């Protein structure tokens, strides 16, 4: 027993001696560690490939990527920068994230000149405007927009829906037909449980009433409890009353509940951003490794179904509106060590122009519209009419019909926008909820 005790003592001390050895670090090490944090784009699985590819080009670099859920990513960035220790590279999205972290990002105008010159000029200009106008804080990786209805075209056909819904009346008609043909399937699934998603839902309804209104309210030109917002939230309430949005959706998250129900054939329609366009590929459509493009984790129950997409109808009347623009851009930490900078720029080149881009935004099933001049979404896997048209709609809406950016600058406001949506769907008073939102914006 005594021996055992002493042995365990020794074992316990040993690793600390190891730490002590590992700590002393030279100024310019042989291996250059490059940390890169992002949310879901690229995914953890993508990183396996991207890391291998990048390190093959630059064998002295040890790329340390990290991919988290958006909400978790925000928390991580906040905590890390609060301690002054952000990653070398980090991804940002125009809106809350970019506004908040642009001060920590290096101006890319000069160091990344070569890379930026290969991207679409309008997109680079947009990156400058969104960064505050006096610098380019992010190298845009891809564009996207919200929000679209992803639908099961096979179900639509069998239910006798010949035209995609464009307003409340045609939506109700589609619902009635779907309910009749598929009594035990949901006509529509929406992930109203997620805070980040509900902020987008709020913005979508507000911009249906008046395009650009959220952007103006964000700048303080309109109050958040103005009549336009009351109308927007009343429309949302009407959808609940009409049975288009079910209160049950408050218990459904976007990933994996809502998208899963739709892809598994348990729901006919599903709200999501344009980035999920890869899901339009037939589940039986597989890559060389035998993994379906639409779901890289195994087959779905809907192997032979055809999928499509259309913009969420403007329930306030008129043309549909989508919000978005640059969906994700890569920023370089302004405090990055001198010897790391060239490699960080090389990574930008790799991801926006080179091999990494070919994989990330160029492969079949990718969801972001690439920012490289002359590049577009890879359409090779969308052979059906519905999916092909769906992709075209998403690209067209994103490139040409934008009502404004997603999200707002103040994170507390964005968070509260989502809470307003949840409370309105749950049946609380619209005016009181918007007053609370206005109060949060003044805090």
């Amino acid at each position: 027993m005594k021996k055992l005790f002493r042995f365990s003592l020794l074992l316990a001390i040993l690793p600390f001696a190891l730490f002590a050895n590992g700590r002393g670090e030279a100024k310019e090490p042989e291996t250059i560690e490059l940390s890169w944090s992002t949310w879901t784009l690229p995914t953890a699985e993508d990183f396996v490939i991207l890391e291998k590819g990048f390190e093959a080009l630059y064998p002295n670099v040890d790329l340390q990527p990290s991919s988290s859920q958006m909400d978790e990513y925000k928390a991580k960035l906040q905590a890390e920068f609060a301690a002054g220790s952000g990653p070398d590279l980090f991804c940002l999205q125009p809106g809350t994230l970019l506004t908040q972290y642009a001060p920590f990002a290096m101006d890319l105008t000069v160091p990344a000149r070569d890379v930026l010159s290969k991207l679409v000029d309008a997109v680079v200009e947009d990156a400058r405007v969104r960064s505050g106008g006096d610098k380019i804080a992010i190298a845009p990786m891809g564009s996207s927009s919200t929000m679209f209805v992803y639908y099961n075209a096979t179900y639509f056909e069998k239910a006798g829906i010949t035209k995609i819904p464009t307003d409340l009346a045609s939506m109700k008609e589609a619902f009635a037909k779907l309910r009749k043909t598929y009594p035990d399937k949901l006509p529509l699934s929406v992930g109203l449980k997620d805070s980040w998603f509900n902020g987008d839902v709020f913005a979508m309804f507000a911009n249906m009433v008046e395009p650009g209104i959220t952007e103006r309210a964000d700048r303080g030109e309109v109050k958040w409890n103005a009549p336009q917002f009351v109308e927007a939230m009343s429309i949302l309430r009407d959808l609940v009353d009409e049975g288009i949005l079910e209160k049950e959706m408050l218990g459904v998250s976007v990933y994996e509940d809502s998208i899963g129900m739709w892809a598994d054939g348990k729901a006919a329609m599903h709200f999501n951003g344009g980035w999920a366009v890869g899901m339009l590929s037939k589940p039986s459509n597989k890559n060389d490794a035998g993994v379906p493009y639409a779901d890289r984790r195994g087959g779905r129950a809907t192997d032979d179904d055809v999928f499509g997409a259309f913009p969420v109808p403007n329930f306030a009347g008129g043309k549909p509106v989508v919000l978005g623009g640059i969906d994700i851009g890569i920023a370089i930490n302004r405090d990055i060590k001198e010897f790391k900078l060239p490699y960080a720029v090389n990574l930008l080149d790799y991801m926006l122009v080179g091999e990494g881009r070919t994989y990330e935004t160029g492969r079949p099933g990718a969801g972001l519209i690439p920012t490289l001049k002359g590049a577009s979404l890879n359409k090779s896997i969308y052979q059906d009419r519905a999916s092909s048209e769906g992709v075209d709609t998403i690209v067209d809406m994103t490139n040409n019909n934008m009502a404004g950016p997603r999200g707002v600058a103040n994170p507390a406001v964005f968070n509260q926008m989502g809470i307003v949506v949840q409370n309105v769907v749950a049946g609380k008073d619209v005016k009181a909820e918007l007053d609370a939102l206005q109060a949060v914006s003044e805090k």
Partner: protein
Amino acid sequence: MFTNLTLRQKFIIQAVLILLALLYLVPLSNVVISSFAVSGFRNYTFLFTSGFPVIRMIFNSLFVSFMQVSLILLVASPAAFAFSKIRFPGKNALFLLIMLTMSISMLCFITPLFQTMKFLRWINTYPALIFPAATFWMPVAILILRNYYDSLGTELLEASMIEGAGFFTIWSRIYGPLSRPATVNVIVFAFINSWNDYLNPLLFSRTEEMRTLPLAVVSLTSSIHGARPEVIYACLVIMAIPSIGVYMIFQNQLGEGMTSGAVKG
């Protein structure tokens, strides 16, 4: 009561127990059954073959737990011994101070902890995954161990001191080994606590390679296509096996300590 039972009483007791057991079995077995849904065992093999670094995460979990347990023992055992057997000024005040920190959540210190980790250059390293969580659990370990040292009496201490032994020798050769029952408790509960910890790795791990298993679930859902629920359930099962296993193995030796050790998180 409940020792000399009639047949009817026995029947009632069994029935109530089975009813309660069902309440526990249904949710737990639902996880296990769901982990085999759709693709059967392929859900498990998928976890290991999809390029998702689950093996590294299992290793991290094991290593971090092992190190936390070692660190806790190494620091808490001598401290508990001192609080029980050594006389020094300010002893009671220090002990009280430590006990008062016992129930404070680590969450309250997010910002300062990050400052400290930055200063130490520990972010995304093993020490950052080990030290904070271990430190926050040490007061519990000290309480368990001190109670046990208290119950051991001072005769051995006095005898050894007459022989001229120093306190370090007395602790490491005599009292340390004698405290085995309490030490086993500390090992088991510190392991379970560390294995299951979600907050510490959430805050201080930055890359996939430095994540532990509880975060694997988070990583698995961090794809726009989402991990299929079956795969997440498979990951949960893998995660549950070691902590249940450790409890089962040491079940009979826990007794006393379970009451002083099971501190709600």
